[in-house]
């Protein structure tokens, strides 16, 4: 891996008002500079192609029939009328689909079989000549349900003897050695973390503080709803076009589900209208395949916005019980967490959220004695999946509120209390991982946001009754950390192939669904290939039949893994170029230098060959030729990671940690309960800013998404488990009117030794701990402790008056 001896430097980017000049190091030609997105022109002209826009010859349209009940037995389904409707080409029900599908815990049916487990679960599907006909046919399907009392409360569901959402849990396949399902319970995974001696930890404490917290499920709300086209072909082959994050994982899970050969299934992903984790794993593809197979025609299924909310998975809810022992001087002696994840009806992905978030469940703090039980719990609600932050936003909401509550009881400044316990060089995480100074600096992140919002030491709790003109302000801070959550053997690969004019195409299977990944890879390839940046083309559509393997585009892992694989591929290509040039110029390879698309002898720059004369093979004046087309191949695999011990949770789960912090000033309207964000400061230890504009814009977007979680968004279920706000009328996300008055962004650059140019991922982190910072500011504004979010006007109004 390349190591560049850069010292850390701070980058401050106040987004409104005057821009501070950034300290730009000049040793790179392309890295660290702002390049606008390479996909910008296609997207602003409307010519970028999404699955949403695709049509195949002979294509049919599908609709699904969904369960109106949260829990019921399917006594019978009558599809006779639907089949007879002119224009209907295929009707399928769960009865004929004896398959299970899933990522970590293989617990999902393609269509409900015998039982439905949440309101909105698909029970039948129709393919017809148009959507209207398919919709009409769905209405003609008669399902006889026997309603069962649903299991809705996560704490009830976790109890021994609770009604079971999945009585068959013990028979399910899952990733062995990583997950620990509890047969005859609603718990598909129980993550334990045990460190130190809890008895000793509690004895050493002068004060023990206990709090419990809650946050509800929410939706990702990518603007393009889930959509997939599948063409089943003869000889058990299939072609898939899908709005998804991970072409190879879609293909793999699809092939495992149906017993197909990988080479026979081709998954293509063009532009994707947002994902945020909601398009990771596998979703509609198996169902659409069944319809295509049955009808003999390509079929497209697109989720309505309502189905996005109550059929497609969401973010899990979390109930957390936290207990901390501290000495008078603020040293943490013991920490206990019990986490109950409201996974909903399935947990194929959710089990890993309960695992991964548990590893960060003590926050970015040194805890000598620790006991964590993280239970993933089935309930009869729309199920959970990966969502930007992967459980960390939910866990850290409690942790960061808890930290402030403890600090107040100790009468220690909340910033000082955090700094005293912050992970630093020599600390051990709760899973026993050693922290180095190059792991990242949460202390610096905290200090920088505190400075940015004008943090005043030892703040006093506010009193909302003393609000002037009905308004009262407060400031809060919160820290964050997250590592990529992924299997220990996660890998990535890149192919760079040259064209006749010495431009090159870079093939990769990480999907750029908005993060700017491909723009960053363009910079990395140009930097390493010593090629003008306009000569690098990252091929937009991902295609499993032509692009090299990548696991999934998730976990903020692509800057590190894709960046490193690209560097490796570029070096492989350069080696080939130099080997041919060495023969042509009759010199040792070691004497050659590449620059600006040319290779030359370092002490004799007149002896130069442009790449154009090498990349398809070098031709001597007499016609002899050597070499041949240059193709660079690169790869990267996570190294040194271990599965966590099932009994103690000890091990190395993190390829890299990204630390950060937010500081926020809010204004509470005590009459309406509305919270206005006066200013929010965000500091992330990015390791190296690869592209400033992309870092800035992605961070702003993440912070606003975090504010949505903090003050707006929540699923509301009725007593029967039916989702009451499945649409934009009743479920609001931030609009342009909901922006903070001011943003300030700070990017620290504590280099990650194994990151490309020192970089680490920052995609998810901007939204983590935003709710915690707002909740803490709320206390210093009003004097009221918040234990659940979102802090909607309604909730705030009643909190102040109770």
């Amino acid at each position, binding site marked *: 891996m390349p190591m560049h001896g850069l010292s850390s430097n701070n980058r401050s980017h106040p*987004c*409104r008002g005057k821009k501070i000049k950034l300290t730009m190091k000049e040793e790179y030609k392309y890295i660290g500079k702002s390049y*606008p*997105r390479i*996909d*910008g*022109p*296609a*997207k*602003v*002209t*409307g*010519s*970028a*192609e*999404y699955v*949403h*826009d695709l049509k195949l010859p002979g294509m049919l349209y599908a609709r699904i029939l969904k369960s109106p009940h949260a829990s019921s037995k399917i006594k019978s389904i009558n599809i006779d009328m639907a089949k007879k409707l*002119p*224009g209907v080409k295929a009707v399928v029900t769960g009865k004929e689909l004896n398959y299970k599908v899933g990522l970590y815990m293989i617990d999902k049916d393609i269509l409900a079989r015998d039982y439905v487990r949440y309101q909105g679960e698909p029970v039948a599907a129709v393919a017809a000549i148009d959507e209207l006909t398919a919709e009409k046919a769905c209405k003609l399907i008669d399902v006889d349900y026997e309603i069962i009392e649903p299991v809705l409360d996560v704490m009830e569901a976790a109890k021994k003897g609770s009604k079971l959402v999945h009585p068959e849990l013990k028979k399910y396949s899952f990733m062995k050695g990583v997950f620990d399902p509890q047969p005859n319970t609603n718990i598909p995974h129980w993550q334990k973390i045990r460190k130190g001696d809890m008895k000793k930890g509690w004895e050493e404490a002068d004060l023990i503080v206990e709090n419990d917290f809650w946050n509800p499920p929410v939706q*990702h*709300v*990518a*603007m*393009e*709803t889930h959509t997939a086209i599948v063409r089943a072909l003869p000889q058990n082959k299939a072609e898939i076009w899908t709005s998804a994050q991970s072409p190879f994982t879609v293909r793999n899970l699809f092939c495992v589900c149906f017993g197909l050969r990988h080479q026979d299934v081709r998954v293509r992903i063009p*532009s*994707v*209208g*947002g*994902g*945020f984790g909601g398009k990771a794993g596998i979703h509609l593809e198996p169902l659409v395949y069944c319809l295509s197979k049955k009808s003999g025609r390509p079929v497209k299924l697109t989720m*309505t*916005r309502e189905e996005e909310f109550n059929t497609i998975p969401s973010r899990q809810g979390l109930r957390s019980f936290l207990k901390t022992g501290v000495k008078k001087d603020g040293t943490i002696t013991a920490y206990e967490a019990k986490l109950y994840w409201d996974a909903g009806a399935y947990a194929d992905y959710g089990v890993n959220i309960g695992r991964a978030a548990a590893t960060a469940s003590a926050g970015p703090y040194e805890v000598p004695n620790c006991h964590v039980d993280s239970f993933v719990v089935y309930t009869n609600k729309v199920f959970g999946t990966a969502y930007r932050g992967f459980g960390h936003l939910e866990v850290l909401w409690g942790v960061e509120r808890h930290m402030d509550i403890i600090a107040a009881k100790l009468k220690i400044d909340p910033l000082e209390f955090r700094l005293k316990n912050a992970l630093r060089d020599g600390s051990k995480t709760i899973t026993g991982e050693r922290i180095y100074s190059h792991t990242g600096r949460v202390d610096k992140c905290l200090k920088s946001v505190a400075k940015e919002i004008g943090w005043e030491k030892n703040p006093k709790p506010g009193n909302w009754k003393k609000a002037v003109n009905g308004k009262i302000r407060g400031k809060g801070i919160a820290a964050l950390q997250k590592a990529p959550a992924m299997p220990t053997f996660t890998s990535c690969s890149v192919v760079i192939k040259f064209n006749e004019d010495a431009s090159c195409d870079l093939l990769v299977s990480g999907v750029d*669904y*908005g*993060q*700017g990944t491909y723009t960053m890879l363009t910079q990395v390839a140009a930097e390493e290939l010593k090629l003008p940046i306009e000569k690098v083309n990252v091929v937009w559509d991902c295609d499993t039949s032509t692009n090299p393997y990548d696991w999934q585009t998730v976990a903020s892992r692509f800057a590190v893994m894709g960046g490193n694989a690209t560097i490796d591929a570029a070096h492989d290509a350069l080696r080939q170029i130099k080997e041919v040039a060495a023969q042509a110029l009759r010199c040792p390879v070691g004497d050659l230098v590449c620059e600006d698309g040319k290779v030359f002898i370092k002490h004799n720059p007149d002896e130069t060959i442009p790449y154009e004369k090498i990349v398809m093979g070098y031709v001597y004046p007499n016609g002899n030729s050597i070499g041949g087309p240059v193709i660079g191949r690169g790869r990267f695999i996570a190294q040194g990671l271990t599965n966590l011990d099932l009994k103690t949770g000890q091990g190395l789960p993190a390829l890299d940690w990204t630390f950060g912090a937010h500081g926020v000033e809010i204004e509470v309207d005590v009459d309406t309960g509305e919270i206005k964000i006066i200013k929010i400061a965000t500091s992330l230890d990015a390791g190296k800013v690869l592209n400033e*504009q*992309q870092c*800035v*814009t*992605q961070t*702003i*977007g*993440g*912070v*606003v*998404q975090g504010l949505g979680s903090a003050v707006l968004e929540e699923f509301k279920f009725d007593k029967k488990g039916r989702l009451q706000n499945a*649409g*934009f*009328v009743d479920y609001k*996300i*931030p*609009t*342009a*009117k909901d*922006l903070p008055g001011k*943003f300030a962004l700070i990017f620290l650059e504590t280099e990650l030794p194994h990151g490309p140019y020192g970089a680490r991922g920052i995609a998810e982190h901007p939204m983590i701990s935003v709710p915690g910072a707002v909740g803490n500011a709320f206390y210093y504004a009003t004097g009221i402790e918040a234990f659940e979010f979102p802090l909607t006007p309604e909730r705030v109004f009643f909190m102040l008056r109770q």
Partner: protein
Amino acid sequence: MKTEKLFKIKVKVNSEFYERAVPARMTLLQFVRDECNLTGTKEGCGIGECGTCTVLLDGKAINACMMFAVEADGHKIETIEGEQRGEKLSDLQQAFVDNGAVQCGFCTPGMIMSARGLLKKKSKPTDKEIIEAISGNLCRCTGYLPIIEAIRAVARK
């Protein structure tokens, strides 16, 4: 099955006239995407709550999913495909690229059309007017600020 009654309409979309016979239930969004094959205009919710389908009707920004195609008979529609100026990006398009106002890109066409509707009405809008003009366009990626900056950059030219 009964044959659905069709209505003949003539709509100018960007620089072309489209004469089609359409059912009464067809939305303007379906007309633009399916009849005119202009797929730059997207559907994000279908009920007028997200703004991804924004087009201009006689110069005014509207949600194409909330209007029937027959209601557009005789009117002029502008979509994102009409925004480009020959080979060159329009000022708004270029500003969106330059200011990092695009991420996944799905809201972008609607966002640009809302901004265009605003600039047609008022060439030098205030920040408040810019925010008001795009407040019906949801974006989940950018946090809006880069979009506001892009529109502001054009307004200040």
